[in-house]
């Protein structure tokens, strides 16, 4: 072996030791590092082997995509023909077919408004945000009609569209309401404080479906005689109130995590209560609460499925109704899995966005 000499600092990097790189090393380190680990790995692989191939076969390879009744579907495979045939029902509910462009347009505008709110590098963000502020009214106008558009009754709303309506409305209105409730709960004024505490604890103590029952059957008792209003509207109000109570608790956690010095410093600078909250307290408290806020959003979005118990037809409701269709009996698994995929994509997306936001707003104070 020849002996080479190098001037200090010029020696080329040596390759890493053979036994610390490559597939074998990775396997050894992560799957077979000890006897127990190896056994666990082998058992896991065996279980996956039992479950995965048959599931993939059922869902993709043996599945039937085209057909008009259950009999067209091959036995032993998933019957996706049903979902293909009823796809529009799952998306639009019973919204009139010739007016569906309005739903599409509203969704497109929702994406634009959502992008403006969620993505801060969008061009002309100021104007876009103004658009996002008025979007709820535009969206409501497009969907329900009136003012020159043919009116559509909210009874016909359904499917993914209904889930989006409930989810977006709840998200948009529960955050400000939750902030107010959280501030009320922290307030020095006993009457306001105990009212907020009572409201929050009551809402958090009962299941959402009892509130929805109240909205659907009993709310007319509490209104002046003769007044009625739309069932969807009542549901939206209840879902928003429900989510705002949970939101209030999440934000209270953020408020309590701030050191008292922040408020004292703001007051000593001569800021009044409103200014101190707007410029000092809330920006910090909301930043800490982001994971909780997004979790509440996800919970609200998932809870929107509960409207099926009072007869509204969201995708799950449509799925449940169509499972009973005599031409397509016994398809519950396929239908529910399809709806599950939709919910998974939206909720997982929200969770990922929350992580992104947390990292972006992390100013290095995190311990």
């Amino acid at each position, binding site marked *: 072996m020849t002996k080479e000499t190098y001037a200090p600092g010029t020696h080329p990097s040596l390759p890493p030791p053979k036994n610390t790189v490559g597939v074998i090393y990775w396997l050894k380190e992560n799957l077979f590092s000890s006897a127990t*680990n190896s056994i666990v790995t082998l058992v896991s692989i065996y279980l996956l082997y039992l479950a995965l191939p048959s599931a993939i076969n059922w869902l993709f390879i043996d599945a039937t995509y085209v057909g008009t009744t259950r009999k067209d579907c091959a036995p032993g495979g998933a019957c996706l023909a049903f979902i293909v045939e009823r796809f529009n029902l799952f998306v639009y509910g019973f919204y009139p077919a010739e007016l569906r462009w309005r739903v599409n347009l509203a969704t497109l505008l929702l994406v634009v408004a959502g992008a403006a709110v969620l993505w801060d590098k969008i061009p002309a963000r100021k104007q876009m945000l103004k658009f996002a502020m008025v979007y709820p009214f535009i969206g409501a106008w497009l969907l329900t009609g009136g003012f020159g558009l043919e009116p559509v009754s909210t009874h016909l709303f359904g499917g993914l569209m209904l889930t989006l309506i409930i989810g977006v409305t709840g998200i948009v209105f529960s955050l400000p309401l939750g902030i107010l409730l959280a501030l009320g709960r922290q307030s020095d004024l006993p009457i306001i404080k105990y009212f907020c505490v009572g409201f929050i604890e009551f809402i958090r103590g009962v299941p959402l479906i009892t509130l929805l029952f109240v909205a659907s059957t009993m709310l007319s008792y509490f209104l002046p005689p003769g007044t009625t209003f739309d069932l969807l509207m009542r549901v939206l109000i209840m879902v928003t109130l429900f989510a705002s109570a949970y939101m209030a608790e999440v934000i209270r956690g953020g408020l309590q995590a701030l050191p008292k010095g922040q408020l004292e410093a703001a007051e000593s600078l001569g800021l009044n209560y409103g200014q101190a909250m707007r410029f000092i307290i809330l920006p910090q408290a909301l930043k800490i609460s982001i994971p909780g806020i997004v979790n509440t959003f996800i919970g609200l979005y998932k809870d929107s499925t509960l409207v099926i118990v009072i007869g509204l037809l969201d995708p799950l409701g449509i799925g449940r109704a169509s499972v009973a269709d005599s031409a397509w009996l016994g398809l519950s698994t396929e239908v529910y899995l399809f709806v599950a995929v939709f919910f998974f994509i939206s909720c997982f997306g929200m969770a990922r966005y929350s992580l992104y936001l947390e990292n972006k707003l992390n100013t290095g104070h995190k311990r």
Partner: protein
Amino acid sequence: MSTPTSNTNPLLRAWYDKETRSIIVQIIAAALILAFFSFIINNAVVNLSNIGKDINFSFLWDDASYDINQHLIEYSSTSSHFRAMIVGLINTLLVAVAGIVLATILGFLLGVMRLSSNWLTQKIAYVYIEYMRNVPVLLHILLLHGLIITSLPRPKGSYNFGDTFFLNNRGFQMPSPEFQSLFWVVSGSVVGGLAFAWWFSRHAQKVQDTTGKAYPVALINIAAIVLLPLVVYFILGSPIEWDVPALKGFNFKGGMVIRPEFIALWLALSLYTAAFIGEIVRAGIVAIDHGQTEAAQALGISNSRVLNLVVIPQALRVIIPPLTSQYLNLAKNSSLALAIGYMDVVATIGGISLNQTGREMECMLIVMGIYLAISLIISSGMNWYNNRMQLVER
């Protein structure tokens, strides 16, 4: 901005005074709240009298005249609405408690799996948790119920476990015990075993604190609780007769059955909540400073005891508060039983009784009151446990 002293108008001066202002704001708030409540209560009174209804709970003692397919206490269609409510409440509590137990076990398992050094286990737990968390629980319930109904065989082709247990789409059939006269001795020995275990663990702790001598507490206690009743049971000549289910015609006769609605609801609630508990447990264990483990290892404590004596007691402090809200969620989510026809408290008093008597106001008040009470009991119980586990600071 003007300063308070520069104002001569007494009304403005009063507004700038913090004390006075807070009183004014509160009076306005109280007036608004009172006005709101008197408005809706007045509306309710007017509306109810318009249709000739009153608020009256005496309907609770009328005959319910409907059947409940799962009742743990005596119930028939001639029982009262009140009894139907109790049956429903017991069913709610049954599924909630069973769900909490299974969810906790699975959740701790998932939490540990998420932290496993084994890549495959870790990923399996991750995929499971993300799937479960991001899909509504109602969908899990309906999916599982559908799976049980459609994919399990009819009673004729039941899965047979040694001719005593049968699994089919009517549920899980199993033998039911019929207690003979001497059975109270066995129950007594269980109570005795529990009492002994309680006394012995306190005694062993005291001995260990004063002398450092450690007894095998877990082993002795298991023997007292399990072996003692077993021995008594066999000495008395097995004072339980088992009523074994058997296929008669199209269905099973005898024994008892765990109904598919219960299985679906119980599994769905537990599997769903377990995913959340798994993440909570993981966060709790991660929150423990690594120095704690290292210090314990440096003292020569074995790995399993490090986990039991150092990591878990500290992690529990972080875990318990969010765990409480998961338990509450599970109890409240059990009301989704309605969607698959499990007869819980919402389906009985808030469903069929409500529809039969037309007393929405009273029934919903009862249902909400029951859930508020359950929530209060769970959270105060967990608070008590939390206070016990908290770090005692000087």
